């Protein structure tokens, strides 16, 4: 018995093609890494960081824990197919090593039942036979859910699934066909030789011996061909994520950081996207405005297949950059950065013309904090005056850096892809702040806060005013008291999802009055619609987004709607009869009432 049959040829061909194509792509992408990224990989290639990477690969690529946390039905579906297939290969390899007689080839593990006709001889073989059937059943249950999801996605808790390309659909069908074909082939062989487990044997017995004899080889051939189709097309479709995510997790764990330009690392990220569509359901543009072709899943797809260049530009532009999809992504791809990369206008605008900023000088502020209101705070003067009152009440010396003239933090430029211009603004701001030798920086604008925290290298602590007020209250520097009033809090995108500041504003508001819970808060909070990330929405569309956010905020009928962003305040102000205030104003009102009493 030579353990060979012509039908294994497509499978062998497919496997070799798969590894050649993937290997070629991976090596090419690694070559496109930045120098810094390459250095980090070289330095850490065999470090202990590899252990947590392996653990994460196990948890995410196989068990899909992050998806399970968001939606257990989807989690089960993905886990059963990924982990189930892994188990099938793993135990299949062990079983065939033990059982196969004659020369062993790698395809023997896949087509084991065909090459090993003897019924289970001992308890070990019996165990493996039943186990393999159980695993196959496990996969088929997941497959059933996948088909169900295709028919009616709401059963699995998804409002909207991704619109796939034709190629993706072909590969999906081939993937779906693999496991039923395996079941049928094994069943038929089990009918003929009695080597099946509880599933395959019982299904096989439904066939007559004559029929089974006739369709055995065609079925196994079909199984091999379907595997071949899946393997060959996989590197060109969304299923490339199966292998790529492993590399991405490894790169992330050794500390590779995303650059400002499209690099090899970005290509790993793009290919790690499984187009699961989890980013669609949360997207405010889809939920409120029914725009359904700009979400991250489509942006990433268009970036991967550059023939959709026009679609790419449209998809790149129309995004609020509210971080909602990045929060939902089960692969944790840095979607906001990819969005920024896709908007890169480096080739168009080479010069910047900010020479006028060179003369702006710092103010000697040793022992003071710098108060950076941000451009938007100039349009909401109550926030800046409130902050000044808070500084004075707490006895904190400060320098209001942009009282008369404000230099933008650079984030709005960066969001639109003007990287070099943004860098120039960052340099100027850094120079002025360093010259002033202040002890800390407090800002009222979450956009500036995110920028100062993540993009600057300031060497002094940076606080958003919610953090700063919370600190002052904890140190008993602010005389606040509990009032009989109620609030709901709106998490600004850049403060909440962008900078992960959730507790401080809630601490402050609970200390002052009653903070009422709303249905969509923290990670799920809605964007006010004014986010600077988007430049293509019309005023009407922005109003629609604002109204959606306001309806959630006013649901528990609070006395005041509180936010912590001048932009959100500006957006909400005219949309509702309830008073909208910034958290600094709420604190100052409370202090004033306290003094009057």
């Amino acid at each position, binding site marked *: 018995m030579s353990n060979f049959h012509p039908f294994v040829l497509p499978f062998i061909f497919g496997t070799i093609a798969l590894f050649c194509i993937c290997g070629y792509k991976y090596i090419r992408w690694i070559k496109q890494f930045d120098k810094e990224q390459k250095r980090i990989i070289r330095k850490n290639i065999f470090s202990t960081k590899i252990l947590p990477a392996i653990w994460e690969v196990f948890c995410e690529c196989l068990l899909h824990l992050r998806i399970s946390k968001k939606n257990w039905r989807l989690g089960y579906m993905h886990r059963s197919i990924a982990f189930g297939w892994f188990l099938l290969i793993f135990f299949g390899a062990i079983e065939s090593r033990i059982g196969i007689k004659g020369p062993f080839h790698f395809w023997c593990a896949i087509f084991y039942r065909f090459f090993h006709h003897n019924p289970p001889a001992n308890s070990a073989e019996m165990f493996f036979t039943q186990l393999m059937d159980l695993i196959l059943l496990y996969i088929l249950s997941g497959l059933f859910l996948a088909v169900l999801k295709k028919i009616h996605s709401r059963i699995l808790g998804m409002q909207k699934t991704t619109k796939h390309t034709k190629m993706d659909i072909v590969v999906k069908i081939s993937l779906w066909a693999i496991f039923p074909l395996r079941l049928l082939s094994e069943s038929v062989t089990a009918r003929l030789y009695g080597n099946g487990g509880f599933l395959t044997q019982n299904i096989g017995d439904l066939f007559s011996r004559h029929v089974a004899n006739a369709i055995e080889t065609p079925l196994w051939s079909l199984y091999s061909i379907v595997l071949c189709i899946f393997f060959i097309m996989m590197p060109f479709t969304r299923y490339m994520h199966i292998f790529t995510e492993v590399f991405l997790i490894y790169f992330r764990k050794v500390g590779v950081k995303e650059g400002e330009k499209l690099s090899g690392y970005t290509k790993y990220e793009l290919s790690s996207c499984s187009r699961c569509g989890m980013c669609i359901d949360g997207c405010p543009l889809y939920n409120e405005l029914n725009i359904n072709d700009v979400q991250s899943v489509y942006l990433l797809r268009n970036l991967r297949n550059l023939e959709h260049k026009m679609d790419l530009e449209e998809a790149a532009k129309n995004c609020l950059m509210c971080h909602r999809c990045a929060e939902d992504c089960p692969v944790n791809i840095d979607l906001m950065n990819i969005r920024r990369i896709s908007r890169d206008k480096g080739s168009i605008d080479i010069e910047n*013309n900010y020479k*006028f900023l060179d003369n702006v000088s710092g103010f000697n502020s040793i022992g003071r904090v710098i108060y950076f209101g941000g451009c938007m705070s100039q349009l909401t003067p109550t926030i800046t005056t409130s902050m000044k009152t808070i500084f004075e009440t707490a006895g904190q010396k400060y320098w209001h850096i942009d009282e*008369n003239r404000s230099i*933008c933090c650079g984030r709005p430029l960066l969001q639109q892809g003007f990287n070099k*211009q943004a860098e120039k603004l960052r340099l100027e701001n850094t120079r002025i702040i360093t010259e002033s030798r202040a002890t800390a920086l407090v800002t009222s604008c979450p956009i500036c806060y995110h920028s100062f925290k993540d993009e600057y290298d300031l060497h002094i602590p940076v606080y958003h005013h919610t953090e700063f007020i919370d600190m002052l209250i904890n140190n008993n520097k602010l005389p606040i008291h509990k009032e009989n009033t109620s609030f709901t809090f709106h998490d600004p995108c850049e403060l909440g999802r962008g900078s992960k500041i959730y507790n401080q504003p809630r601490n402050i508001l609970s200390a002052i009055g009653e903070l009422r819970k709303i249905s969509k808060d923290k990670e799920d909070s809605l964007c006010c619609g*004014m986010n600077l990330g988007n430049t293509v929405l*019309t005023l009407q569309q922005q109003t629609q987004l604002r109204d959606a956010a306001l309806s959630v905020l006013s649901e528990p009928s609070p006395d005041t709607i509180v936010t912590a962003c001048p932009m959100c305040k500006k957006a909400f102000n005219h949309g509702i009869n309830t008073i909208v205030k910034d958290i600094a104003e709420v604190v100052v009102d409370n202090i004033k009432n306290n003094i009057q009493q």
Partner: protein
Amino acid sequence: MVDFGFNIKKARSFNMSNNDFSKVKMMFEAVPSYRLCISCGGCTATCSARQFTNFDIRKVHNSFSRGLYVNLDKELQKCMLCGKCTLICPRGVNLRSLIIEMRQLLNSQSETL
């Protein structure tokens, strides 16, 4: 002479029929709210870049509408894209989008020449 903090410019004349309005037409398509502008100057009054220089977005906008594209590109590079103008505009003109598109349109001109 008393310094009022502003000066009066000399009258200038140009022939509208000689100017090239192709970019204006493209702008109408790219940013439909462009046509809503009433030249109130709110954008210029609030502009962050204006606080440091004589950058005047209203003037740029007016020149562009008249097909006078010379030097607008350089002027626009002073913009920091902070978005205050968009927020303050009483007509809801999407000025940030306008500025980005204008830069691209003006740039595409210089590339073809």
